């Protein structure tokens, strides 16, 4: 079957919707037996601290104006270019800021003073995930990059929560348990047991062949766009699912207790098997309206430990150099404590990046002593209170699209981010 036929089949022409049909289909039944080709990276990981993290207890320390009860300005630590809030003395589990920056400071790019515009969870998550605040249809960066780079792999876009819109470009995949992958990987065997197939091999081959003949025949039929799209996606999903068997060798024998680490195991096995492009990892409960310090001292270390777990395991799997990691939250928290010792929503926040193509040991942007945003010169990325701009998520997302090399992809153009040439952060990645 010719690829152009499949493009038509998928309704890609004209409307530009996803064509999740990979080369494996094009090359016919034989290739189909082994599933889609492996995706070899880069792999994109978005870590979400859902609920709104307190940036002043992590990468944007203050210690002034009674903003932090656990440390004072003089206690602030530095590691390379980074300034960090000390917390090793206050945590019971997880990874301290001190250790996190010690391990990763040299690779870490921090942007403080991000104008997240909204102090509400839902729009904040949407904005941080897509770069577009006032749209409910834009895809998340993770979904977009998956659609652009590998929509033919079975778990192209894995998500574990948080805002996960796909823009109708690529199916999202939820795999809450690692062991479910074992069953899925052997779908043609009773109970997932490869020694007990449902059908003789040649029967399965004939079924696949007939399904291919059927979809080929439908290429020439005139159908509604939705029908074309869904038939294509269904065919691709079933065909590409065969590639899941490649995950099995990378499924760890034991499963960690920590929630982020469990997600990381699924993601890494999928990356390594070449069946996944991007993943949306998330833990919640950061919304510390009461007892801010206790909550943040529990959650930030858990969050950082999850990142640490993923990076270290990626080293073992020899894919660390292919990771692009974004670490974010939908908002920050107020500079002052409320009556319940909590902190409320604050629309100025921070974001961190590390991985392939990103020069670390850098801090861009800032907030002042009232935790208000300080503008940045988009060209030099230095502070410029007079002529600088307020960096917002669309600036970040445009830069991420550039970093991933998908800014000119037809899917990206379908969801444009309107940032003027002068405001683009062209040197963000160093």
């Amino acid at each position, binding site marked *: 079957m010719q690829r152009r036929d499949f493009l038509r089949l998928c309704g890609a022409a004209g*409307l530009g919707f996803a064509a999740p049909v990979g080369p494996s289909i094009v090359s016919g039944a034989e290739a189909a037996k082994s599933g889609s080709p492996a995706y070899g990276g880069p792999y994109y990981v978005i870590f979400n601290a859902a609920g709104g993290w307190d940036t002043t207890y992590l990468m944007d320390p203050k210690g002034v104006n009674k903003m932090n009860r656990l440390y004072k300005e003089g206690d602030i630590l530095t590691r390379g270019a980074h300034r960090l809030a000390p917390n090793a003395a206050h945590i019971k589990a997880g990874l301290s800021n001190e250790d996190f920056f010690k391990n990763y400071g040299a690779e870490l790019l921090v942007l403080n003073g991000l*104008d997240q*515009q*909204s102090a*509400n969870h839902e*729009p904040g998550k949407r904005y941080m995930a897509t770069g577009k*605040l*006032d*749209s409910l*249809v834009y895809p998340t960066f993770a979904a977009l990059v998956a659609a652009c780079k590998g929509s033919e*792999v*079975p*778990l192209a876009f894995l998500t574990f*929560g948080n805002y996960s819109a*796909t823009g109708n470009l*690529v*199916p*999202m*995949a*939820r795999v*809450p348990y690692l062991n*479910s*992958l074992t069953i*899925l990987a052997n*779908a*043609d065997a*009773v109970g997932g047991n490869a020694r*007990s197939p*449902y*059908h003789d091999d*040649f*029967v399965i081959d*004939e*079924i696949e062949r*007939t*399904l291919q003949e059927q979809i080929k*025949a439908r290429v020439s039929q*005139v159908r*509604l*766009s*939705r*029908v074309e799209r869904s*038939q294509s*996606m*269904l065919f691709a*999903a*079933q065909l*590409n*699912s065969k*590639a*899941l068997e490649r995950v099995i060798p990378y499924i760890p024998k034991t499963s960690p207790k920590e929630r982020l680490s469990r997600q990381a195991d699924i993601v890494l096995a999928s990356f390594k098997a070449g069946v996944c492009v991007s993943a949306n990892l998330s833990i919640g409960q950061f919304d510390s309206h*009461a007892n801010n310090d206790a909550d943040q001292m529990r959650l930030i270390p858990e969050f950082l430990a999850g990142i640490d777990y993923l990076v270290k395991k990626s080293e073992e799997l020899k894919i660390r150099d292919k990771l692009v990691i974004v670490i974010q939250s939908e908002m920050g928290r*107020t500079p002052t404590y409320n009556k*319940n010792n*909590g902190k*409320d929503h*604050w629309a100025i926040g921070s974001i961190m990046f590390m991985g392939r193509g990103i020069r670390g040991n850098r801090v861009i942007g800032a907030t002042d002593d*009232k935790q*208000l945003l300080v503008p940045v010169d988009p060209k030099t990325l230095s502070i410029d209170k007079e002529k600088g701009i307020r960096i917002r998520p669309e600036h970040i997302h445009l830069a991420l699209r550039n970093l991933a090399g998908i800014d000119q992809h037809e899917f990206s153009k379908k969801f*444009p981010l309107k940032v003027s040439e002068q405001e683009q952060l062209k040197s963000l990645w160093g």
Partner: protein
Amino acid sequence: MYRREVDGKVYDFDHTGYVYKGSFVMFDKQTGSEWIHVTAECVMGPLRGKSLDFLPAQVITWQKWKALHPDTTVFSSRNRWKAKSRDRKAFSRTSSRKKLGLNVVVDYASKLYPYSKLEPQRVINDVFQKTPLAAVFVPQADCAVAWIRKVDDRTLTFEPASRDGQPLRLKDKETGSLWDPLRGKCVKGALRGKQLEPLVAIAIYVGRYRAFYPDGEVFGEKNDSASKPPSAKNAGGRPEANHRGPQGVVVDRFFADEVWAKVGERTCLKCHHAQGDASDSEFLLQDTLRGRDSLDKNRVAFAQMAAEKEDGKSRLLLKIIGELDHGGQDVLKADTTGYRILARFVRRTSGKPDDGPAIADYHAPPFFDGIEMMTPRRILRRVTLSLAARLPTKGERAAVERDGLKEMDAILDQVMREDAFYERLKEGFNDIFLTIGSGSDVLSYEYFKEKNWPQKYDLTDAGDEDAQKKARYKLFDDYRAAMLHEPQELIAYIVRNDRPFTELATADYIMVTPYSARAYGIYEALRERFKDPDDPFEYIPTKLPALKSNWGSKKMQESDTGFYPHAGLLSMFHYLKRYPTTETNRNRHRARMYYQQFLGVNIMKLASRVPDAVAAEAKYEIPTMQSADCVVCHKTMDPVAGLFQDFEASGHIGPRKDGWYKDMFGPGFEDEDMPDKERWRALQWLGERTAKDPRFAVAMVQHVYYILIGRKVLLPPEDIDDPMFASKRRAYRQQRKLIEEVAGRFASAKFNLKFVFKALVGSEYYRADGLAALAEQPRRRAELDDVGLVRLLTPEQLERKLTALFGQKWGRLVGRGNKFEILYGGIDSKSVTERMTDPSGAMGAIQRILSNDVACKNVALDFSREPSQRRLFPHIELDVVPGDDSAAEAKIRQAIVHLHQHLLGQKQATDHPEVERTYRLFVRIVNHAKSKEGLDKVGSYSCDRIDGKRLDDPHYTLRAWRGVVTYLLRQHDFLYE
């Protein structure tokens, strides 16, 4: 000259004595409406938006006219003739004449031929609005005329054919015939005696033309379609033009597609309408979905605002960027597309040249034109499977075969009496309200000390200790399930009993079972009302007494009636617990969910962007009440939040000790404050208003649309730079129109929700099935992008379908602890609340497991039954082998036809390509097996055993049929609705 008749009524006209943009203004004596002379449009008064039809006419001296038409009678009025005389003299002067042009109107589109271009050429052969025309300047009459240059389907090309000083004659190149240009008659040659058809054409000052025809073409100018190269013409379509709208109103395409669609509707209309924040403004607009001639009225409002000047600048352009104390501040920046559109509009309406791009010419067909609708038989199968979890009955099939869709309402009436429909209804509404996510532990010990009654329940009759333990587990399970589903049972009760669905917010009762009633402490009082007091799931409506604390204070809930003030779902503990509040959230989350679920309003979407949120916090003492950026949202949300003030985080009564917050807008709804005396029943007060709010009906229709179609209604497109913006907007508006129409009828039907199901099932959106021909036009394709139900079945739906088709459930897609439910895109109503609509590779793997396993469990089983008892293979046995004879082939094909019908709902002939494909699959498997040595002569151990014994399968037909069923269960027609 016009026909003075509008909608069959004749009017008398006179002029008002004043001019508008250089054109005198007429009025009709019957209604006083005012009309523009040049365009014949009514711009003010009761007939605003109407137009008069032009009649062909010429501006010519009387002397020359009389010479041409000696029998002419004259309408004369002394005074008016004097005025005309002056005009005539002025017209005759060459200098004045050169300022004129011939305005030719074809199909309500206008094109101007300036005399400065026409006079030297004498004749211009042109094509406008697909009409070949000749514009002619006739020197002997000092006038210009226009003719359709076509005779007997033959298009002619004219050229001047007179010597200097002689009266102008025209010659057609095709036959060489000579024509009189003033009369349009052939006077010599092969076509002698033939008459050309005149076009409406009047003289108009070139300088005034743009003021009245901003979208019109001018011959020889940039926007002249005739002056563009043929390739551009073909690629870009015809030039932009006004066209006549449904009410006969001449629509300004630039205004409709650009100004209104991209700016007015999305930006200005939010405040500038009769009930909006800017309702006291003179610049009032109308929603064009509702008003018959509202688009034209809006155009007039925009045009007036555009024409008003402040320091030489249009007020429209100043207001929109926040100047002149615009209440909405700067809604557009000067460098935005929206502003540029308005600037073009101002230029166009002021008669200045508009060098912007032409509006793409696309004449949309009726929206569902070319869409094939599903046959009644297939709709019937969809309806019964989807809503009643069963196949159609014979009687139903016969009814639709006989009477088509006319029978559908009656069938739906029956379907909506079946229990399965209520399972689907409850499941569908849980997708929206997500109350399952509250969990079953919704009662507080403070008020319900019996909430754990199964713990102490006497189970000695159950047997020994172990048996009692098991019985107690079951008791708890049933009790929890009974409690958990109370909100959904309320919905089912309302619909089943044809009660107004407004009771969703107003019902003064809840639904309880013998088990949940015990927890509420009202079992004994209700005991007699239950048919079976031991049935954990017999739900009846009842009222709770006002709550009384069991703790030290012994406080009572305030209540004038002695009862808990029930307000449907709103006041149920499940709902309140599902959407909890915090000290800092202050019930705003509840208010937000209320607006979204009950009124279809996404508050977060309405006002999600503020220029500098933290600056507002710093600048104002109470930003949510003082900062315009915050107030826009909080003035709506906070009053409703205040109505929930007496319900604490987990959903029970628990007013704040310090009273409700003073730094919030007080309790109320929209612009109405809640009276203090209503506080004890605040949610009832809200429910009453909800029931009267027109948005409630719309929101409920949207919910049913989601349940039936599987996706939410379209949102209006946002990106005005998107080339497909207009198409997406049309698709949205078309769908929105349906939703609003059904909502209106739903309200008239006393809010009976069954009506909505019937209306939507009958709509094109539910029935659209295919295209009669490929939609080549990208805009047309974009319009139809969302058309067609095409829904991936949810795990629950798929499980029910399997049960309906195979007579037994598969059981691996849904149920407690079933890992496939979430993997297959299901929800847990708490952390996973959105269903997946496109299959991932993981879901593709589940589909393969399902098809293998269901075929495994059912094919051998079916063959083991008596033919009359079989669902899958009633007409064939395993000893029918392909290749034996033609009768065998016929039987196999017939068996495949049955399988296609039963599993896929396809009624096909035995030689249909799809049947042929399945037949080939069966044959190939059997033949392959025949050629393969060492294969067992019995079925497989895992799949083909009956009573522990593997069935004989000497010809491999059993396993081949299993392969066929596996193949069919993997298909789109099975897995999608």
